[in-house]
């Protein structure tokens, strides 16, 4: 197959997958199921290869330098498979403990510095009434999460004000995300409408959906 033919096939397949996944908006159907399983399968394959490549990229330079102690990581990694043995199932805890602890350790100091103390510092630097209001919001919001006492007396009001600020954050997040997500739909629709030969599949999809709706209607009757 020539390059052009391969490219056309890739585009056609991409358009088919796109339309089939969009068809979930109508309802769960056979085309969606097929696309879903093909997508999951190839994503698992690709993801596993990328993971393997990442691991090899870390491992190989060390082995080339003659640091054979790094083969130990392979052994520890293989302990995951101990899970299949009834007697040695607990071996999976060794690799998990290392992975988990290094992730936790990397996060904790940076998290406390930037996300806790850093934000506290930025909050108390009050310049005008807006930043003062912001500080009130942060303090009340933190009160909302105070969980070892029933909220009574002044705490009720503080946590209520805190809730308002949390609600404002939710609203803003949803409002801002509309734009980002709509851009993605625009990208997909543009692909379907203007990319050769993707647009040939649109009428096919319409016919299939129409047939499906008629089929549903007949069955109901």
């Amino acid at each position, binding site marked *: 197959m020539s390059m052009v033919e391969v490219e056309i096939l890739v585009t056609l397949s991409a358009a088919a997958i796109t339309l089939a*996944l969009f068809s*979930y908006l109508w309802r*769960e159907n056979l085309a*969606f*199921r097929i696309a*879903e*399983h093909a*997508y*999951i399968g190839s*994503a*698992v394959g*690709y*993801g*596993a290869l990328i*993971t393997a490549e990442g691991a090899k990229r870390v491992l190989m330079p060390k082995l080339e330098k003659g640091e054979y102690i790094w083969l130990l990581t392979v052994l520890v990694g293989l302990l*995951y498979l101990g*899970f299949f043995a009834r007697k040695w*199932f607990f071996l*999976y805890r060794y*690799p*998990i403990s290392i*992975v*988990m*602890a*290094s*992730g*936790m350790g990397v*996060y*904790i*100091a940076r998290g*406390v*510095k930037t996300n*806790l*103390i850093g934000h*506290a*510092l930025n*909050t*108390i*630097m*009050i310049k005008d009434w807006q930043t*003062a209001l912001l*500080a009130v919001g*942060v*303090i009340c919001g*933190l*009160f909302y*999460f*105070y*969980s*070892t*006492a*029933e*909220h009574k007396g002044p705490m009720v009001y503080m946590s209520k004000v805190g809730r308002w600020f*949390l609600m404002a*954050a*939710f*609203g803003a*997040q*949803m409002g801002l995300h509309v734009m980002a997500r709509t851009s993605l739909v625009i990208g997909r629709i543009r692909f379907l409408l203007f990319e050769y030969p993707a647009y040939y599949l649109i009428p096919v999809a319409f016919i299939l959906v129409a047939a499906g709706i008629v089929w549903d209607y007949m069955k109901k009757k």
Partner: protein
Amino acid sequence: MMLSESLVGLEVKSGYVFSTSFFVLSLIIIGVTIYLTIKGAIRPKIRRLAAIDAIDEAVGRCAEMGKPLHYCPGISGMSHRDTIPGLAIAGYVARKCAEMGVRAIFTFRNAGVQPVLFDLVKDAYIAAGKPEDFNPDDIIWLSPRQFAFATGLVGLLSREKPGASLLLGGFAAESLICTEAGFRVGAIQIAGCTNAYQIPYFVTTCDYVLISEELQTASVYITQEPEKLGTIQGIDIARLIIIVLMGVGGILYTLGIKNIANLLAM
């Protein structure tokens, strides 16, 4: 600086001095509260969260309707802060399901979660006295890729039509896909994560939500073990310290006294 430097004999990076001291201080506070709680000197009382009661309700609803229950401990790996509370609640939910004879379907994205989840669920069935009901095929790895996982979840939910869908753990952009799929099959939905970008979607589409820290609180609440309750009490005291620091610091800052700001910036 004195404290942390003299304690371990290491040079602390600039900018980390106060945060390290605060971390050490909160460790000490938590240590003390755990000790006092185990001794029985204090009894931390966690305020009730509606979502926790709703978990039992959801299992009951599934049992009544004869439908399965879906649980997802998030898409994150073992080192993520939300996964571990998510797994702790998974064990609780699995046990409840086993007791009430509800089929529980578990999904996850990160491969590293698999053995832990498998083990927890199996253990829950054994503890409930129904090891024969445990079905390993109901613990499903959907995909390592975020949106492939979401697609698989959508397909799974629309085919199995669970009576309840519990999403407690680390979630990212796919959160709304999961909850919308749950809504379309009419499942009661309880969700929770600490990702500030995704909580809005949970709040608008789910029936009960554990916001941010409440996820951790819930994972402790269901066990009612004193030492775990002690950590919650301790962290609430640390929270009060931060609140007081911010309140006093903010007032002083407006008056032109920047001592606390300088302290925090250390």
